[in-house]
């Protein structure tokens, strides 16, 4: 129940009651209905982390590359250390 993969919001059904706001979300082609009650900021095209039917957060695309940037910085540092003075 805790394994959450990011899903892509395909469509949103808005509702006058914010607790009823829901989306159709694709998980690699498997589409599920997901509540957006806790992610009022989520829009079509966003990726969301979903737990037992509720989107708990949107994935921040600006932060998504950090893990690779960190590697690149480590590589650059290593080059600096090994390059001749």
């Amino acid at each position, binding site marked *: *129940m805790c394994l*959450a993969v990011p899903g892509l919001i395909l469509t949103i059904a808005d509702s006058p009651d914010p607790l009823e706001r829901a989306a159709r979300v694709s998980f690699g082609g498997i589409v599920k209905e997901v*509540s957006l009650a806790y992610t009022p900021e989520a829009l079509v095209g966003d990726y969301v982390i979903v*737990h*037992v039917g509720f989107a708990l957060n949107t994935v921040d695309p600006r932060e*998504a590359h950090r893990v*690779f940037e960190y590697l690149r910085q480590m590589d650059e540092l290593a080059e600096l250390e090994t390059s001749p003075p």
Partner: protein
Amino acid sequence: MKYIDEYRDKKSAERYARALADITTRPWTIMEVCGGQTHAIVKFGIDQLLPAGITLAHGPGCPVCVTPLELIDKAIHIASEPGVIFCSFGDMLRVPGSKCDLLSVKAAGGDVRIVYSPMDAVKIARENPARSVVFFAVGFETTAPANAMAVFQAEREKLGNFSILVSHVLVPPAMEAILASPGNRVQGFLAAGHVCTVMGYTEYYPIAEKYGVPIVVTGFEPLDILQGIYLCVTQLEHGRACVENQYTRVVSREGNAPAQDLIRKVFRVIPRKWRGIGEIPRSGFGLAAPYAAFDAEARFGITGYTAEESGECISGQILQGHKKPRDCPAFGVRCNPEHPLGATMVSTEGACAAYYRYRRE
């Protein structure tokens, strides 16, 4: 799939592993808290990429695994009552109680239904007003927003036939219990990223400070876990003990405010028993007073029931990082996913189930 495949890139993983080997000068034991991380570590062989001195201890973050025996017995009792529709996440059905499991109640004619979300159970209650519908509300902070919403909606709709059997546990008190235990070997933590999605990570500052352990909020893909370990070892090697966030694409410092608001409205913090560990103060949720009418234990008059853990299952030792699945003589012999002796073999997030699936030889 986007946000998955790129974090499984083999070259980058090997690069992190080499970088780790470069900075590691001493042996370190790091615990990944979440069962989802344990699963990824065993599945992708991340532990086998690490320098010899680094040991990963598998933590208690599997809700199925830590649900105490007496709550399984209570679930079985309620599900066996005539007229009841008992709804549960699928992985709870095979967890052994004192005498049987929920699946055997279903096989004997009980109306036990697997649901994907607690809101499905609310829907079943709405559609079956003459039946008593009970949802088995297990989980950590990740499922609390959904379970809180189910109770909140049921109250709004005055669904008198809906109740929940609450078995909610919280991660930070369990981390503290592990650090405070006399046999503790854990020197640093990878905190569970999705728990922090809900709660943020400010709760970890006092723990890192009090016990002098680095705590790195970490995601679930191989590169996330490797970077989490790298950040943790960097701190350990430099004698630092800070809270760091590896999983910035999903986790913010403050967490999800609307979810926390509803959790605080519907639940209150109480002591909870953990299977194999025992009672931990302030380590779980029970229903708050305004929602007490939705408590299945009170409704079915079983609040006072207790059961003692027994048998040869060593899941308590495994959940605290003292032992690994292969240290158990029953592992793969008398205990397997078809005939589990304990919960760590049942759940997809359980350490024994992960070892059985990926590491049997």
